[in-house]
């Protein structure tokens, strides 16, 4: 990356790198909680891209979208973690390789 004046591309590159890190986390880590944290990383990368687009296109709608995404993500985290706790209570594990009930 060259040291040109920081523009939309720079933010988008950071956002893309962060998203790929999230994908990598979901692929590599086998712990449900850490996988869930990587999902949050991906959501945050999308938020960063939306805020950057909103700033550089002089359009505030993108930031309203991010506001709604944050709200929905908070609800999603609450439900997801409750599911993980319920699963742990039944199976005593949070490791995906031990959760193969639906395997054919």
């Amino acid at each position, binding site marked *: 990356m060259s040291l040109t004046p920081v523009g939309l591309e720079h933010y988008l590159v950071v956002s893309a790198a962060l998203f790929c890190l999230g994908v990598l986390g979901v692929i590599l880590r086998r712990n449900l909680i850490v996988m869930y944290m990587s999902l949050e990383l991906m959501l945050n990368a999308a938020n960063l891209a939306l805020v950057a687009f909103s*700033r550089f296109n002089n359009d505030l709608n993108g930031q309203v979208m991010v506001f709604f995404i944050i*709200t929905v993500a908070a609800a999603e985290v609450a439900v997801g973690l409750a599911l993980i706790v319920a699963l742990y209570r039944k199976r005593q594990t949070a490791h995906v390789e031990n959760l193969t009930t639906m395997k054919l």
Partner: protein
Amino acid sequence: MQDAFFYLFAALTLLCGVLVVWNPFSRNPVTSAMFLVLTIASMAGLFVLLHAFFLAAVQVLVYAGAVMVLFLFVIMLLDLKEETRRKLNRFGLAAGVISVGALAGIIILTIGKSGVGANLNPQVEGSTRSLGKMLFTQYLLPFEVVSVLLLVAMVGVILLSKKDLK
């Protein structure tokens, strides 16, 4: 000056993001959660650089505050000691890094070639005043629907965490 801050915050965000996913010193989920807090905080710095002041505050309050407390609470609740002993599968590591690296390369090359960001004179300010005005006029219905969604999530969580699931 602003550019220097951009590079500082971007480097911090990416470094802490790497440490969330793959930390060479500790495999403990608590460490991952702590680095996720740092990632989110430095991302709030990027939001401030983009003049999205309200969203930066919301990011710190909701993500670094509420969501991460929830994560840490669940990590403490579950017994995750065995995770610290597990090693990453070498073949899986190589395949994952190569495929995701290819994905990153494609996205970043596309961004470079697309020629977005010609506008170097942005003016929009994401202040609480302007965002609130939009939320309570143009986006009033989605705003109310989201409150119902939060209620539904709350009821669902209470149902899920009851002792005997039927």
